[in-house]
């Protein structure tokens, strides 16, 4: 019964142009990704107001703080993340998923594609950054996972977490469109020569998104340093919303600079 519904690209002028690029096959990954980001720019900006996105960013700020506590599971429960006692990072992301879904269902506004992307980007970033930073000389314990999560409360680590989150979000938004078109262009004279090439193409899109969002490392680090430490502030969802607004503006600005560079070249 596992039906899957796949989509097609919209037929507006912007998207027809992008399909034209793909058909021509003489466009770089970066240019193609930028063109997609440009065409979906208005939609992406809507994500700023999406309660799921704000909840995701707020939780990414608060979970490391909770991990610093000796009462980790209680602190997570207070954030709306239901976990067992002495939770693993997998327990945390499973609870994170449910907590964001609860927000998505509140108020009858329901779930959105952008909210879903934000939730997935949050889970991917949180789990990924912990996995990458766990000690490797021994099999990590749950305590190692907790302390690694706690370390994300430090501004530079939060910069890493933020970049991963925004990078995954931008990447998902680009692939949300490209995944519908690229399979139609496989063959000796096409943009992808084989299915295997598509995986390499995906890797190139990811790299592009990481480069586009690298600015987040410095921004998020400074932002948390300023708000979390210097002002000793208990970060609210409003703070998370403000943070995400500026973050998106910075990413859009970066995308715009890169587009201009492509045009100049």
């Amino acid at each position, binding site marked *: *019964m*596992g*039906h*899957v*519904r*796949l*989509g*097609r690209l*919209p*037929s507006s002028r912007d998207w027809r142009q992008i399909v034209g690029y793909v058909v021509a096959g003489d466009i770089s990954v970066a240019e193609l990704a930028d063109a997609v980001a440009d065409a*979906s720019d208005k*939609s992406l900006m*809507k994500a700023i107001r999406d309660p799921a996105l704000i909840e995701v960013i707020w939780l990414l700020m608060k979970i490391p703080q909770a991990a610093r506590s000796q009462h980790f599971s209680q602190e997570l429960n207070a954030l709306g993340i239901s976990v067992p006692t002495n939770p693993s990072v*997998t327990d945390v*992301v*499973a609870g994170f*998923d*449910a907590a964001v*879904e609860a927000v998505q*269902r509140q108020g*009858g506004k329901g779930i*959105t*594609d*952008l909210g*879903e992307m934000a*939730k*997935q980007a949050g889970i991917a970033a949180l789990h*990924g950054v912990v*996995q990458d*930073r*766990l*000690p490797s*000389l021994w099999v990590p314990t749950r305590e190692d996972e907790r302390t*690694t999560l*706690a*370390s994300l409360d*430090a501004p530079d680590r939060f*910069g890493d977490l933020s*970049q991963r989150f925004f990078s995954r979000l931008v990447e998902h938004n680009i*692939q*949300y469109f490209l995944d*519908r078109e690229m*399979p139609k262009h*496989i*063959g*000796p004279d096409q943009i992808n*020569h*084989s*299915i*295997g*090439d*598509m*995986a*390499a193409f*995906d890797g*190139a899109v990811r*790299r592009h998104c990481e480069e586009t969002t*690298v600015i987040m*490392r410095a921004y998020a*680090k400074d932002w948390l340093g300023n708000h979390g430490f210097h002002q000793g502030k208990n970060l609210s969802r409003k703070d998370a919303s403000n943070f995400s607004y500026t973050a998106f503006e910075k990413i859009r600005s970066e995308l715009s600079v890169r587009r201009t560079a492509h045009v100049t070249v």
Partner: protein
Amino acid sequence: MSQYNVVCGGENNSCTAADVDVIQLDVQGVSKNVNLKIEDLNWALLSNIPDVLLDLLEVAAYVYCADQRITRGSDKLSDHGRQWRRSLHFTIPLRQPDLWASEAVSSALCETLGFLSDDAYSFDFVKATKPLAERSLYFPDLVDGTFVPDDIALFSGGVDSFAGAVENVIGNGRKMVLVGHHSATKVYSVQKELIEGLQKMGAGRNIFYVSVNVTNTGAGATEYTQRTRSFLFASLALVVARMFGKNEFTFYENGVVGLNIPIAKDVLGARATRTTHPKVIQGFETIFSALLDNEITVKTPYQWLTKREVTEKIREYNCGHLLSQTSSCTRPRTWTKHKRHCGACSQCIDRRFGILAAKMGELDPAAGYEIDLLLGDRSIDRDVRMAVAFVKFCQTFVSLTKAGFISEHPQITSALRYLPGLSADDAKDRIYDLYRRHAHDVLEVIQDGLKLHADELVWGELPTGSLLSMCFSRGHIDIPPPSGYDQKVKAFIDELGKPVCEFAVDTDAGKILFKGGFSLEGANFKLIQVLLDNHRMGKKAAAEIAFIASPDLALALKMDEQSLRQQIARLKKAVHETLPAALGIVLDVIENKQREGYRLNPELREVSKGDL
């Protein structure tokens, strides 16, 4: 999100909002537009149906028919798929509205349907103002006789449900009631043929087939995604199970399809069906148990099997000759007498890969598929995406590590808490193993195809739009250049404020000092002090820092090696509890190398007390 008011059973519409569309549904009377029919049951069983289950049948039928009446927009997903999700408010007259309106039932119902379909659900369950349908309306063609089953299971006529029937009836000699829903006569024929096939094998007395038909009548269905269908199926199975005095029933579905990790990035939420997703199964159990005030169990015994592993059961119990009569295709409208599979939908592709991986291709002729899995031309846009996305997913998955699983497929987290008896970590690991087996199966089929059709590939005789060609055709080899750019930029930005783990030695106070006021003293101090000489020498000479052998270190500290290990563990614990949170530093202060011993982590930097 588009809003709809679904008014059922002849109730009056109380909603006057201009932006809310109204849909009227009724299972009886002059305005009847929902057909609900459960056939071939015994007269005696009819009395076993309490009112709450008649209510359940109607609720499930209304939800299912409304789901089909309301469009989810086109597959262009305009405005980020805004039309995909709908807000549905139902007004349903029932026999026991108070029970349905209870928090336990209504919250579980809304949550489960919401997750199952991506829609937002709300209900007004009201006391019927007009006579509700008599139970006999839903059960035509009652027959005489008795049947005492061991199990009740849903039966679609696909590979998985057929394998379940074969394993139970032929393999284990159990008596089963098979509940088969069909909305098209072609599907009904498939189910009947398979039942007859099993009967010819001598299983006639062990099978009781119940045919169910729920359809929209009058107004045709406009939305074919039918995301709520498993709620209908489960409700039908429960009603039949209770008629036979059972508190459990079974969904036979392989785990890969049950979990259904999306294979493309536009497939978000329930666009990959969640019909037997663990969270949905648990939701059904919660709803049904609350309704009946009795523990109801929904079994999914093939949860940890791949399609290949399920298919192999059919051969194991000598029913391979019936394999070609099963049908998994989601497009029965396209079927012809000799081709019951379109070969392009996700179900066809999954089925064919499973069968070929099980080396049972000769039992399921390729001629039964409109498009051959590996050799058929998929040049038409509509047909190419699914196959390509399916293979690409598997190609990528085989190189994925267990540690990176959640990061690459975060959607899986929604299932981790709903697999009975497993922690989230154990569930994650088992799902990863299940998918790896699945991915290997798929790639092996392609590998076999390559061996079998190498000549055609070499001579360019395969259509360029065939899956096999698309796997291997290359004009030239593109190797992405090693960028390193992103790593360099990250490193540069991080270096601006990279935390360094500095410490100072206060010999007078007997303390190792860190920033933020944290210090190590007593036995921890002595331990670090012994390791410090090598650390300083190595740093001074800009050379590798030497390890101290475990016996030597123990001797220097005047303790045995067991005590030394305990002491080191205590020190690590003290450091782990403080440094990561206070300074954003995660490192093991003391490194241990097998057969070489211990040393201080070279990343530690000693400074003077004043500089600290």
